[in-house]
């Protein structure tokens, strides 16, 4: 089972990996568009989502994953912090989130996503 993380490890070595969780309120397509508009790092990016995406851009690898894969990766992420190159876009109930600042009108979703994606 552990060997299944090989591709993830390889992707993390090449650059950031962002998993847009299936319950995240902003569509993966929209996140990807924001990502494209703000990322100028030149780093390779891998975007994981259970949804098929039509947006394509050089330097961004899109990987469609199954719900089962999503669950496994999320479980691993919630077991420990295995890389600073790995991030998950999701809303959690057991802790605060930048999404609360968006909900309160403190900043726009677009502005928050830009910061989140660039960090």
């Amino acid at each position, binding site marked *: 089972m552990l060997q299944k993380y090989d591709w993830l490890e390889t992707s993390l070595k090449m650059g950031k990996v962002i998993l847009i969780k299936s319950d995240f309120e902003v569509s993966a397509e929209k996140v990807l568009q924001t990502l494209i508009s703000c990322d100028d790092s030149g780093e390779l990016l891998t975007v994981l989502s259970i949804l098929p995406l039509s947006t394509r851009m050089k330097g961004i690898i899109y990987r469609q994953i199954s719900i089962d894969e999503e669950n496994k990766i999320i479980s691993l992420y919630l*077991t*420990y912090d295995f890389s600073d190159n790995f991030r998950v876009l999701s809303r959690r109930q057991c*802790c*605060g989130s930048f999404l*609360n*600042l968006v909900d309160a009108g403190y*900043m726009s979703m677009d502005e928050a996503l830009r910061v989140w994606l660039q960090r």
Partner: protein
Amino acid sequence: MLNGRQISEMQENFLQFLNEGAFSNKKIFIFGHCHASEVMADMFLKHGFLVCGIIDNNEGKWGLDYSGISVCKPQIILSYDGALVCIASRFYEEMYKQLRGMGFTGDVLKLVDYNTYAEYSLSDVTIQRKRKRLELGLENLQDINCRFPGHFRVFCPFEALGDVYMAMSYLPRFLQKIKKSKVIMIVPSRSCAEVVRLFSGVDAYILEQGKLDATIQAVLYSQDKGSFIAHQDRPYVIDISYMLQAKCISLEDLYRIGVFGLGKDIESAVPSEWEDYSALNKIPKNNSVILSPYAKSVTSLADYVWVGIVKYYESINYKVFTNVFGNEEPIADTEPISPSIREMKSVVERAGTFIGIRSGLCDVIRTVNAKKIALYPDYYYSNTKWKAIDMYSLAEFENIVVKEGFEWKQV
């Protein structure tokens, strides 16, 4: 911020590296300018080592100085043969990776295990080890459930009085929002538990930091609906403070809005469960000043700043006390005083004046009726473009930035 256990761990590791000869004939650098790095620098200086520099990614800190050691950019280490980098930071994994990414091939030493959540590896061994830690955390969580049946569990992940105070300030409205009444706070130290108990009707349960980390990991993993983690940037999944890259957000709003999801107009709860200090009569009423020069979370202020303050208050016949804890030394020509957190209100109100470096203690006494002054080292918060005072200033205090050449004047 280092707690007592972490300082002991750092001392033990330092001595072990020393005995192994790890520092011999090396150009020593410390990565990250913070309280922990200053403690480490003191260890090197005490043992007669020269520290070539404190490297830091924050451009705003370059050129600063601690005990004659300059803060400089990380790339400087590449120009030294035999450079050695020592780290005492929760960002060890990121720092290590950065150093190797820069092409630094020298030794990198971790002097304290500051962040048990992170290990940048997907090796089988690491995954198994972290799963074992998770299992222990799940057992701890189950144990807490048994000890406090029917309680909603709120975790304060780190020993920082200000963060615990902020959490407590907005907890009642948060509990109202999520329709919970019975709550137990889980904190890493007695001091944090004291802050909790300042607020009416809430009790605290203390878990040692390593166990607390594992239990919080279990809360995350199990997505436990009966638990909440009340912190603005820990552990790693919490992303609120990253928004500081775009906007200056006060610590209060990071908690009120970011952590608890409350509206900006929601007012904070006020602590009420104070106790009287037993020796109040030794403090001349309204003719004393309580100095609080120590903070674990921020870099220290130069001695001359405090000396100048003491001189001024002596000149107007005030009695000057230094609030000390554990092995902390009082400032010269002042009397040590060690009230508990719950006794601070009586002490400060009796004295009439409080002057402290901006620390969690300032949060704790913000509602106390006295003249209160918070001093801010002139530094940038984390890797942001905001100064400490931009984020931490307190409406109930006079807030003063201490720049180079600072001279105390009556305010």
